[in-house]
Structure formats: C-alpha cells, structure tokens
C-alpha cells in the first residue's frame, strides 16, 4: 500500500484539458465556471491520472541525474535488464475504471492510497502470452471524503503487440 499527496492546481487542470482537446470553460475560467452546475473550476474525468506528476517514485519520468531509457546519442539511454515500471516499453495500459463520488475541484488536496489487486495470464490474439496486473487507488480530499476510486489494469506482452494489417501503412 502506497500513499501520496496530490494537490489539484488550476493551471494543471487547464493544461490537462488542453492536452485532451477539451475547450470546456469549466476547466479553466473561474468566472464562467461559477455560473455552471459545477459552481467553480473542476477537473476532467480522467484527471487523477496526472497524480503521476506528484509521485516521487514514478518510473516513466526522467529523473535528474539518473539514466533515462529514451533515445539520445543512442536509440536508448540504458540497456534493459527486464522488469520494472514499464521500462523499455514492455508494459501497456489495458483497462482503466473510475467511480466518481464527488466533483474534483481546483484547490482540493487529494491523498491517493494504492493497493495492488490480482494478477492473471492470458493468451493474446496478437501478442503471445499476456500478463495482466491490477491496482486500485482511492483518492480522498482534504476533508477525508472519497472523491474518486480508480482501478487500473496493466498488461505486459511477451513481445510487441502486432499491428493489424491496415495499420501498417500508418506508421
């Protein structure tokens, strides 16, 4: 079980909404948002995924002074030793589920508590053996109220996912 603090900042919500192509003023315009049912700036439904920014141990962010596996002088900055945090591009996101208990507002400070779920194996249609693993994160606000429950399923294929024929021209 891991617990992290996640401050919900208005500028962060604005950038996140832009990145998903959502121009809804309720995500960036405090005055306009006041007049809506939300009553103020809220975060989009998938925003809690950005809690990764506040996770000091998050594996998919370059860290100062540490090797990074993306390209630089060479196609990869580190040679893979296998396993760990999606490093080397092995892990993919298979499923994501949210339950919303109350609106997530700019100014809230969430505490995220993650518990590992089950793991299972499956023969993939296109990717050899697939190893699935699940985690459940509860996000509570500064008043201890449950805001969002997130269940995430990751998959680690034994080889890169093969492309459907039509997609090959799309590279």
């Amino acid at each position: 079980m891991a617990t992290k603090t996640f401050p919900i900042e208005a500028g962060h919500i604005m950038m996140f909404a832009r990145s998903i192509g959502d121009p809804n003023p309720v995500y960036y315009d405090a005055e306009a948002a006041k007049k809506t049912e939300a009553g103020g700036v809220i975060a989009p439904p998938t925003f809690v995924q950005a809690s990764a920014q506040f996770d000091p141990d998050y594996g998919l962010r370059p860290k100062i002074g540490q090797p990074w596996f993306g390209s630089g002088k060479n196609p990869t900055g580190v040679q893979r030793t296998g396993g760990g945090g999606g490093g080397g591009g092995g892990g993919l996101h298979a499923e994501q589920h949210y339950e919303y208990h109350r609106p997530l507002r700019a100014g809230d400070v969430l505490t995220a508590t993650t518990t590992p779920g089950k793991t299972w194996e499956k023969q993939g249609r296109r990717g050899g053996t697939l190893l699935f693993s699940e985690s459940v994160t509860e996000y509570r606000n500064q008043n201890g109220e449950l805001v969002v429950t997130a269940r995430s399923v990751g998959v680690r294929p034994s080889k890169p996912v093969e492309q459907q024929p039509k997609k090959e021209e799309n590279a």
Partner: protein
Amino acid sequence: MALSANELKPGHTHTARIVEDLKRTQIVQYAGASGDYNPLHTDEIFTTKVAGYPSVFAHGMLTMGMTGRMLTDWVGDTRLTKYGVRFTSQVFPGDTLDATATVKNIVERDGQKLVELDVKTVNQDGVEVLSGYAEARVD
C-alpha cells in the same frame, strides 16, 4: 444542461469526433500534462528501433480523456458517476477518432435517476480502439 430521463430511451446514441488527424505534438502535450513520459508515446527513435513498434502511439489515457469529453459534453459537468474502458487497439499519429455513447438503460438508485451507457471509440478504418461504459446522473 443535464439530460432528462424522460427523453432518453435505450438505443439512443450520441457521437462526437474527438480528434481529426492526431498530431504527435498533441501526444507530447498529453505526456507533459499527465506526467507519463514513456518514450513509446513521444520518442520515434526509441519506439521503432528499440521497442519494435512501427511508430510512436498515443497514451491509452489520451483516448480515454478525449472520449471523456464526448461524455461530459453530453451528460453535463459533474454528472458522471462511473466511467471505465478497455484499450482494444493502439491509436497512432494521423488517426481520426469518433466516440459514441449508446443508452443501455435508465435506472434509479437511492432516488437518483441514472443513465447507463455503452461507450465505444473507433478510428478512420472502423477499428475499435476503446470499449467501455459510463453511468451519469440525469434529471
């Protein structure tokens, strides 16, 4: 602007084009905002030469986020109670995606009317890239 239970029937659909010709830069934007800097999404050299994919591809969560816009534009702000998806195919730069919500049922729980929706997003070839469900409070 919320939906009214009286006006919803099972089988009703709502569709929106959530992205046209997805740009690599938008994927970079999402990496920066979400904090997921996996090079598979932004680093063409790593992705093609080391990971063995034909090109960088979008975060599944970018597709879920864009599909979420279709939902919140339709059901209204703060109305979603559940939203869950499976990522069924990869989304690549250049893809154009259409997201559809289909009314499955209208239910009542603790005196609150809710609409249950099937959610699906397809690319320009008709390939399903995301499949899931949502539930929202309605008036």
